[in-house]
């Protein structure tokens, strides 16, 4: 049976317009800025996630939404009756191939003309379009489609979407924590539904905490250590997680002077059962905290430390080798991650790739005696 979960005021939603993703909490006043456009989201309330909406222009740069039942892809619509050239030998860039002026094109947009009609006019008034190769025409139309696209989809936020969104917007905003690194941290920390995980996370928009919580059910716990007033928060599955955050994460409002004292409280909670793993991903150098918390890690369980830089992990690696006979299997890893364009006769790696996804140190606690 399919369950159509409908969108309510207060929900976090991901607004997707082609490759543009935006995380947004739906307020009673439903306005949101999408790029330079002001969009009223009233129409999405009560609709299921995954619904597609058409943007209807009200005023210049102001839109309402209407549920869409059909979208015709712009390249498909336009390419139906267009001729193509075989190569680009007769195309020179003299800046004169488009006969329409910028003002004329702006005029079309303001008059509320559909994307398809505008692009149709652009092609009609182009002296070179018909000589371009089919691939090149398609590429041009995809570019134009992106610019004039009139549809959005409302998605339910997931850790995967958030991770991709934060990282591609600005890797620094999440300490360079790329999705493959999050994935490996969850693996090496052996995160499973009912475990107790000690997490020290900062500077990552709570991405890792969200990812761990997403793996837990109501028996699982995250003990979040923080040097700030509150543990970091994120909008991911917020409605669902808020309950858990109260009952399962032990928030430690650690003001600096009481830092030590509160740490003891967290440790008491751990004394009973111990931690199933220790997970660190912070702006700060976490070695003193690691050395302290290692005592509460169950034997045969893992320590996982993430760092955007290599050097802090090398230091931690050396210190643990020197000082702790009860930590074995120390490794530092990094990943090479490359995406590929898969198209018929045009398959190859993407031109640009992410050069670093951070570094991960792993180790296993053993009984020292």
């Amino acid at each position: 049976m399919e369950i159509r979960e409908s969108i309510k005021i207060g929900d976090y939603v991901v607004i997707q317009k082609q490759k543009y993703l935006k995380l947004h909490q739906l307020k009673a006043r439903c306005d949101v800025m999408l790029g330079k456009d002001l969009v009223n989201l009233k129409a999405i309330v009560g609709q299921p996630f995954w619904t597609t909406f058409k943007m209807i222009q009200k005023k210049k740069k102001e839109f309402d939404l209407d549920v869409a039942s059909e979208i015709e892809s712009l390249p498909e619509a336009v390419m139906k009756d267009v001729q193509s050239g075989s190569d680009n030998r007769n195309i020179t860039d003299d800046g004169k191939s488009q006969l329409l002026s910028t003002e004329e094109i702006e005029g079309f947009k303001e008059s509320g003309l559909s994307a398809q009609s505008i692009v149709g006019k652009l092609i009609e008034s182009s002296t070179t379009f018909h000589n371009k190769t089919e691939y090149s025409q398609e590429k041009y139309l995809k570019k134009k489609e992106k610019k004039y696209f009139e549809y959005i989809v409302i998605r339910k936020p997931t850790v995967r979407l958030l991770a991709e969104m934060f990282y591609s917007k600005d890797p620094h905003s999440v300490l360079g924590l790329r999705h493959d690194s999050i994935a490996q941290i969850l693996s090496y920390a052996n995160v499973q539904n009912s475990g107790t995980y000690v997490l020290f996370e900062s500077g990552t928009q709570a991405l890792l905490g969200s990812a761990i919580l997403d793996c837990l059910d109501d028996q699982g716990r995250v003990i979040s250590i923080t040097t700030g007033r509150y543990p970091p928060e994120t909008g991911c599955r917020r409605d669902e997680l808020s309950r858990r955050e109260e009952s399962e994460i032990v928030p430690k409002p650690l003001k600096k002077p009481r830092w030590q004292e509160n740490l003891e409280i967290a440790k008491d909670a751990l004394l009973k059962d111990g931690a199933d793993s220790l997970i660190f991903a912070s702006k700060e150098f976490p070695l003193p905290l690691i050395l302290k918390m290692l005592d509460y890690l169950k034997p045969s369980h893992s320590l996982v430390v993430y760092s955007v830089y290599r050097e802090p992990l090398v230091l931690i690696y050396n210190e643990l080798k020197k000082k702790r006979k009860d930590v074995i299997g120390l490794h530092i890893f990094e990943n090479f991650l490359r995406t590929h364009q898969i198209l018929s006769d045009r398959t190859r790696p993407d031109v640009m790739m992410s050069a670093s996804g951070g570094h991960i140190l792993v180790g296993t606690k053993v009984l020292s005696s």
Partner: protein
Amino acid sequence: MSFSRDKTEIDEGDTVILYLSASNMHAFRVQPTIKNKHGELVENVFQTTYGALKVASLVGVKFGSKVQMSRGWAFVLQPNPELWTLTLPHRTQIIYTADISLIVFHLELRPGSFVVESGTGSGSLTHALARRVGAHGTVRTFDFHDQRAQIATEEFAQHGLSNVVQVACRDVSCDGFGEDVQGRADAVFLDLPHPWLVVHHAVAAFKLDGGRFASFSPCIEQVQKTVAALRENGFLEVTTMECLQREILVNNRTLAVASVETSDSKEPAGRLDERSQTVASDSSDKLELVCTNYQNTMPGHTGYLTFATLPPVWARNISSSACPSDPDGDDGGSAPVIETAGL
């Protein structure tokens, strides 16, 4: 129940990991006796590079303990999917932790999820899938090789995973995933020679709500056909990537410092005789450094991972261009325009 989180000490029948060093680990079952090649029951003695270990002596020992062997010692660890991947008996090529992690993450598995896998192979990925869906989740795994399916079934039972993992011997390329899977899957994973033949069976296996799809293929021709099939069958967000994990090796090194300066600073500059031009080699001109490096060789390719989303059945064909699966084309550098708010 070797993999169970609550476990702290070794019981008879458990699978354990014997850790001699990071590159020397063994997995075996704790059975006091074992059949020799003549079929006679004999004492189970495990041979290592540091001598023999009487396996019966492990019963009652805490995981993480140091254990004595005849010519040295080792640690005995509780197995987890990562250690198991490094030590499991290979019956096929296996998928390793870097790819496994990415697969599990991108399938968006959660406690209670229903995931379909084909083929089972040596069960390397299966353990990680089972861990993520938890005791209330389901892993249905298929292999067309009867003996492989049988051995995998036994292994999952020994590891206490029978309630979560169900193995079936079936050629899903021909026969699909079967009626009892139809409409139940949150996620489908394929590691098959011809994954594109199974894409429409995968669609049938998904819940009406849709879900996430992943395929692992070593060759790009397989990927091309699979991606074409995914696009034809209404999948969105079709992306292909490869992930290679590199270990960073840490070594403390002492380097001699090469210099043309004289060791005696009082000597007037410019008076370079033969002796002072030689590279300083006395002990004070040494530099102690923590050095990092990579291994000399590494796997340069494991497989291409293709991920895709199947939207809910009512939204298919509508949302296709609103969340595109096609790459932008030649301007691969254009990062998606992304904005966040409301935090």
